[in-house]
């Protein structure tokens, strides 16, 4: 029953989305309100039907309905309750359902929020959003139907990929997809503004806020992905420049560029064409990213290979890019800059440079990701450019961006005088240099680390200086320090939200630099009772035990960790054996710390427990990545709040 119901709901939702997109566009052309209302009802209907699809699929998972092929492949009778729910997005078809559902939710929010306040843009926004939704429903109907029936019905399913049976996998795709689909809203507003020739300022305000929301979820998704990689995959790393990581990183970079250059447009009425191009590019890159992930064109841990789906995505991408850029070209005369650049030493040119570097980083990542494909297609030679390529090119670019992060927020618009520069930057620059010299004296020899630290201190110095001055100014009106700071954050939430996001990035930068430079590892085979030593830690192998879990068998090693100071603790890394696979999966155990993590992976072992091979890593400052993520969350939330100055 469920396969037929689900398929029926999918087809009905597709028809509704198509009708809604058409009706909304027709209402904009003819001005007939009834058509628009019909389009809205279609959007609500499509949302309800996709929700029904999700409910049906979850029900099928919970009830072990193996007549649904997707359920049979991604679960078995031993799969625990919560992973049966999240198995919904454990593979290609289900992840598209989740995608469509989120897009439908965003569409609904747009309907509720803008049907009255943006009467001119709204019909076209609705039309574009429903058009994109229809595309994903088409994917669910033809190339990747989630409700495909399986005959004969098997007695048990195959089971969820063991690597995905982790809390990180519950949240990572959700955050990532909220980011990816969220970029549809700015794109729809950009298209609507171009169509009705209202490329003025109001769509920019709406678009900026929605871009921050999508940007934030994407950042969160990337960080949770890093956390998953770190504590599940057992290699002690969080980022591998894997093609699919890159696919999510590219729209993040272009969205970051937009969030900065949009300020130039608001302030100086410049870069209109550029900002629209960034919005289109960001949306295009989300589709391109899905194409990379879902078509199986590039192999990686993330990709789910399927047949014809790649052509659908490629066709849709071509349609989006051609359509939106030709629309852009036809509106060129309205997008002339009204301001001019006055000086090279100004906030405008800092933002320009920031955009140049962000787009360059995007291009580098794009190039490194598709170059192997091009090489194979054109020359027939299979090559790969790995992490060394991305690091070599991107590290200088990211360091330059860090520097600009300190300069941009404080330098004057139009033309910065020598006095402005001295007043704002002398102390932070000195602080950065002193910090680097101090670290050098303490024995830090790595040039990249020193540069990163100096830049981080410089940027933090500019933020502290600005905040201090602003709080001091508010103190004059009688507030105490705490009230003055809090009032400032709320009153100028955009500016200080942005600053806090910058602080989060600084913390992440420290984590990346520290972990790359200072982490150490050692691989040894230990006899029972024998110890190894690394970076002041002694790790003793106490023995092995075997156990039977609900859906897998587990061999666990017991290790005592001491570091000479306090009493020790135990770590229990394991190997899990899932019946559906022939080789085991490592289960890492670790103790996290602000300065260093002790990270232990069980490798090979003797069946009688007499010896085991382990990899011990002491990873420095990795926790700062997760801390940076929290800071970033706070900053983004502050920046999304309605602008207090305007509301007041």
């Amino acid at each position, binding site marked *: 029953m469920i396969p037929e119901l689900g398929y029926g709901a999918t087809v009905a939702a597709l028809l509704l989305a198509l009708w809604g997109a058409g009706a909304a566009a027709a209402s904009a052309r003819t001005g007939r309100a009834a058509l628009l209302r019909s389009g809205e009802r279609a959007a609500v209907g499509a949302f309800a039907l996709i929700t029904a699809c999700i409910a049906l699929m979850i029900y099928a998972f919970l009830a072990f309905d193996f007549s649904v092929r997707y359920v049979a492949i991604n679960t078995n009778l031993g799969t625990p309750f919560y992973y049966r729910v999240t198995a919904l997005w454990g593979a290609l078809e289900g992840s598209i359902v989740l995608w469509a559902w989120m897009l439908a939710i965003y569409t609904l929010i747009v309907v509720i929020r803008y049907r009255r306040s943006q009467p001119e843009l709204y019909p076209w926004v609705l039309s574009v959003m429903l058009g994109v939704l229809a595309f994903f429903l088409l994917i669910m109907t033809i190339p990747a139907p989630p409700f495909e029936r399986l005959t004969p019905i098997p007695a048990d399913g195959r089971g969820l990929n063991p690597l995905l049976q982790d809390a990180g996998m519950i949240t990572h795709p959700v955050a990532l997809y909220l980011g990816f689909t969220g970029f549809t809203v700015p794109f729809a507003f950009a298209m609507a503004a171009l169509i009705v020739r209202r490329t003025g300022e109001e769509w920019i305000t709406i678009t900026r806020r929605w871009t921050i929301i999508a940007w934030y979820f994407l950042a969160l998704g990337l960080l949770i992905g890093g956390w998953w990689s770190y504590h599940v995959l057992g290699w002690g790393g969080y980022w591998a420049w894997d*093609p699919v990581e890159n696919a999510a990183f590219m729209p993040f970079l272009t969205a970051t560029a937009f969030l900065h250059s949009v300020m130039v447009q608001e302030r100086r009425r410049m870069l209109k064409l550029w900002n629209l191009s960034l919005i289109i590019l960001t949306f295009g890159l989300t589709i391109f990213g899905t194409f990379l992930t879902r078509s199986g064109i590039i192999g990686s*841990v993330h990709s789910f290979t399927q047949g014809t789906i790649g052509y659908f995505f490629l066709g849709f991408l071509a349609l989006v890019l051609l359509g939106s850029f030709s629309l852009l070209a036809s509106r060129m005369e309205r997008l002339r800059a009204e301001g001019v650049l006055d000086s090279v030493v100004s906030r405008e040119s800092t933002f320009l440079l920031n955009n*140049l570097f962000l787009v*360059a980083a995007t291009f580098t990542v794009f190039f490194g990701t598709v170059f192997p494909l091009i090489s194979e297609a054109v020359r027939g030679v299979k090559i790969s450019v790995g992490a060394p390529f991305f690091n070599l090119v991107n590290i200088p670019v990211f360091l330059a961006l860090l520097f600009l992060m300190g300069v941009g927020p404080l330098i004057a618009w139009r033309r910065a005088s020598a006095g402005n520069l001295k007043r704002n930057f002398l102390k932070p620059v000195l602080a950065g240099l002193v910090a680097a010299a101090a670290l050098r004296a303490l024995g830090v020899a790595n040039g990249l680390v020193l540069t990163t630290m100096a830049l981080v201190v410089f940027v933090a110095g500019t933020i502290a200086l600005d905040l201090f001055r602003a709080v001091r100014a508010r103190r004059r009106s009688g507030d105490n320090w705490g009230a003055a700071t809090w009032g400032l954050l709320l009153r100028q939430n955009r500016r200080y939200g942005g600053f806090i996001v910058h602080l989060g990035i600084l913390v992440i930068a420290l984590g990346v630099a520290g972990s790359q430079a200072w982490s150490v590892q050692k691989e040894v085979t230990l006899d029972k009772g024998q110890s190894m030593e690394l970076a002041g830690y002694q790790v003793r192998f106490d023995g092995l035990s075997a156990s039977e879990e609900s859906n897998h068998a587990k061999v666990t090693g017991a290790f005592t960790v001491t570091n000479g100071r306090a009493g020790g603790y135990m770590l229990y890394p394991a190997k899990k054996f899932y019946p*559906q696979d022939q080789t085991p999966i490592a289960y890492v155990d670790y103790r996290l710390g602000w300065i260093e993590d002790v990270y232990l992976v069980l490798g*090979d072992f003797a069946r009688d427990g007499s010896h085991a091979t382990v990899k011990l890593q002491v990873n420095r400052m990795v926790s700062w990545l997760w801390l940076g993520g929290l800071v970033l969350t706070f900053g983004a939330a502050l920046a999304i709040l309605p602008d207090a100055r305007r509301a007041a």
Partner: protein
Amino acid sequence: MSRRGKFVAGGLVIAAAIAYLIWAGVSQSVVYFVTPSELLAAPTPSKTYRLGGFVQAGSLKWEPKSLDLSFTLSDGKASVPVRHKGTPPDLFAEERGAVVEGSWTTEGYFKASLIMAKHSEEYKAPPDGAEPGYKELIKSLRGNDK
């Protein structure tokens, strides 16, 4: 120079610098993907390769004490002895696909610095007893070097 000229020139200098970085990055870090027959046809010592093949049955030797791992990678036509220092990774086993990164040595073996075991497509457990054909395997390996 006009103001506009300055901006254009500055932008061009930065674009050229980044283009140079990309070029240098590619020429320094490009790694060629070869099969055992391709490697043996023209082995160049000390050049970095990714070698993809099938771990031959009975060839896998693992010394836990010294962490010495050795095995033979084959593509059905030729086979290359591989040595590595470290535990065999998860998903690595005889009669399974693997990609190793490293270089050919003058002593006649491939010294691997990194082993990437091949995850079968969409987490498919091979049907019992059925051995995947070499062709199928090499094809899937070549499409997946991660």
